């Protein structure tokens, strides 16, 4: 499935897209791996990749506290110990734990402080809250929906990649493509190693994986051997295709090989050693930072949707201590990512979303933690967003939404709209029922859209 008309790159890129149609792309596959479609022309591929819309979601697994981030209530009984600091948006204060975002909030970012969900548990429903649930139908996640709309089939890159630094309690919430089919599911990059549980002296360190399993060659096979095999397969394939090059099944089969080879060719995208030292240092040494840097490399190459899970934020105990450690990391990595994307001219085509499955309670429990809460905040930066807009309010203690509540459906419609996708676009279930991207009648939050 190609991108929807609304999400197609326009002008030059659009024209290029026509020149290099799917037929031309597949037609070129018979010329061998090295002559694969757009990869033949790096300049064209680069241009297409550059103008394609894409999304990076920084998913705060476990539920980040809105009080210690986007919606602080200093001096209130629910406020916690941290101060609120003035942001670059007049009148808007965020937690002192986010000084870097505070200084540049006006540049790229809008914040919705009035998100309300029916969920307040560690389940993945917030990722599936776009489409109206249809009985008996497996629904696709937001990542699958977005990558289906935004993917450029003519780029041999993954459609959908998900990172997690945390295997803890399954806090990565695997996305499912549902009835869309497996091609829209994510490539999951999970931690390579789980440190031992207590007692643990902390003398070791977990090893975070930055690339998917099986990206490399099989054990024992050299690059040369693999290239030889590929060459042989290609020669045999070309010979077989003589006089049969109008057969779609055969051409598809050949293209499939080519695509797999293309994905393997993407392995360099996961290698941050390819980045200048200065860039790696800017992101930092943590797993979240390094995975976010890989996310930037992926979207730069045209991957339409990347989710980086950062957690675990389920702070039923020691909420303030945990947030004091984790929020500054989010602050730093998020600002570095936005600056990096902006410098490369990618931010106008890339939407960066920070999102959680829920928020945290105003009250503090006996473990000095905050529990699960259904009201929380989300930030949207970059592509299609009107920067500096602060939408919605909660009351003085953060108990209730006091102004402009936003549902998850409306948030998802806003995300679709920001990247140029018609949020009411319909698909059909295998039994023919129409299924819109967001529930009928849902409207995006136009105030945060450029």
């Amino acid at each position, binding site marked *: 499935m190609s991108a929807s008309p609304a999400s197609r790159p326009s002008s030059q890129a659009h024209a290029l897209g026509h020149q290099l149609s799917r037929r031309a792309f597949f037609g070129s596959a018979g010329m061998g791996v090295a002559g694969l479609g757009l990869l033949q022309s790096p300049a064209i591929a680069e241009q297409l990749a550059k103008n394609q819309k894409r999304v990076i979601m920084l998913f705060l697994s476990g539920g980040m506290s809105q009080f210690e981030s986007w919606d602080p209530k*200093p001096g209130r009984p629910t406020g916690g110990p941290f101060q609120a600091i003035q942001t670059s948006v007049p009148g808007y204060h965020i937690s002192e734990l986010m000084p870097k975002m505070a200084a540049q909030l006006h540049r790229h970012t809008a914040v919705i402080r009035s998100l309300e969900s029916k969920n307040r548990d560690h389940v993945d429903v917030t990722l599936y809250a776009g489409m109206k649930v249809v009985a008996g139908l497996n629904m696709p996640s937001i990542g699958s929906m977005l990558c289906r709309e935004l993917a450029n089939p003519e780029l041999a890159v993954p459609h959908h990649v998900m990172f997690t630094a945390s295997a803890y309690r399954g806090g990565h919430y695997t996305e499912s493509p549902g009835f869309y089919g497996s091609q829209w599911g994510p490539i999951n990059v999970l931690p390579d190693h789980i440190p031992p549980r207590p007692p643990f002296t902390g003398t070791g360190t977990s090893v975070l994986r930055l690339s998917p399993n099986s990206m490399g060659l099989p054990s024992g096979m050299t690059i040369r051997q693999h290239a030889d095999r590929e060459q042989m397969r290609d020669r045999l394939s070309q010979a077989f295709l003589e006089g049969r090059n109008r057969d779609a099944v055969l051409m598809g089969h050949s293209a499939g090989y080519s695509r797999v080879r293309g994905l393997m060719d993407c392995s360099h995208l996961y290698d941050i050693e390819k980045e200048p030292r200065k860039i790696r240092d800017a992101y930092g040494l943590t797993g979240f930072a390094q995975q976010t840097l890989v996310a930037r490399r992926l979207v730069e190459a045209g991957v339409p949707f990347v989710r980086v899970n950062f957690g675990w934020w389920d702070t*039923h105990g020691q909420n303030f*201590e945990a947030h004091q450690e984790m929020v500054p990391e989010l602050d730093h990595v998020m600002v570095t990512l936005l600056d990096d994307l902006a410098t490369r001219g990618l931010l106008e085509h890339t939407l960066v979303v920070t999102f959680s499955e829920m928020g945290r309670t105003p009250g503090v429990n*006996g473990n*000095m933690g905050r529990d699960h809460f259904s009201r929380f905040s989300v930030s949207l930066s970059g592509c299609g967003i009107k920067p500096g807009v602060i939408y919605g309010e909660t009351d003085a203690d953060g108990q209730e939404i006091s102004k402009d509540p936003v549902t998850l459906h409306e948030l998802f419609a806003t995300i679709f709209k920001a990247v140029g996708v018609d949020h009411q676009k319909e698909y059909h279930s295998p039994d023919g029922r129409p299924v819109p991207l967001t529930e009928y009648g849902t409207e995006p939050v136009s105030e945060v859209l450029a």
Partner: protein
Amino acid sequence: MADTPASKDPGTKEAPAAAAKPPAVEIKNVKTFFPPLKGDQPKPDYYSIVAVPDSDLVFVGGDTGKILAIDMAAEKPTPTAWDAHVSFVTGLVLTDKHLVSSGSDHQMIWWDRESRERVRTIPQPKWVRHLTLSPDGQVIASVCDDMVCRLWEADSGRPIRDLEGHAQFTRFHLRSKLYAAAFSRDGSHLATVDYAGHALVWETATGRRLADVFAPFFFYQDISEHGYGGIRGVDFSPDGRLIALCGNLCGDGSQIQRSSALIQVYDWRSGKLASELRGDNFFYERVRFHHQGKWLLGMGGAGSGQKLTLIDRDGKSPVAEAKPEAKLAPMFDLWLSENADVCFTAGRNNVSKWSISSPS
């Protein structure tokens, strides 16, 4: 605990039964006061407490930013409260002339002890977590999230020196925190403890760092490469040779489950572990030595260990414990009298007085 049978001269003949019974050490809740709440106000947490010696007058401060003066001797105490900090009141000490408070609002404030009027405010770089007063009452040590311990002239508020030496970052590249400080009984040494499991011992007069004791079990790395734990409290043994550290061992960062409350005693000069006590799923937030070394007092805070525990002089076994009257009421700070017969604790919407009887 003194004079257990094991500590007797093995050649001594004891009268059966009565002589075998160790002298009683006991801790009792004398009184718990619940400051009145207004309307549906959430229960406030009181994070700091200090008492006027030989009296029942205590000052407490907590998450409301107020300081309360409470006469615990009154049948129905009527606290006097005033606005002090914007957010948490994290430390309180009493000098000859002043009550000094610290807050998460990056401030230290000197208050006139009698009139309770603000005398001076000194801005701090970050959250000040704890204050402690030297035994002679002349020096206040403050510990701040910029990882600097600052010494102040107690009454003038003039800075004496900064003690810098704790690492700014943990080994997982994230910011560390400085939780507490304690002077030795003679005031010659000061210990400061951090999130990453380090206790530094300083020479008070010069600011020279004398030791860096690494206690790795207090700091834990979870699967996300995030830290959890920290050394939350510290005290010197009466002879100044040992330091007791308290906190939690390797817990589940989100729930304080599958963990152990932890007190460890180190010979700080050699860095060797002298003793250890583990508890249930809670943090030991404070630890104090008896002034003659008869026992250690541990105070359980967040988690399921809302109790005071007296631990034998070897630091290995509990010998007495008492729980607060209020259920689900974590305790956050304690003040222990000089002769260790009375202590006051501050916790979730409660202030408690405890009596301690020790064998002579």
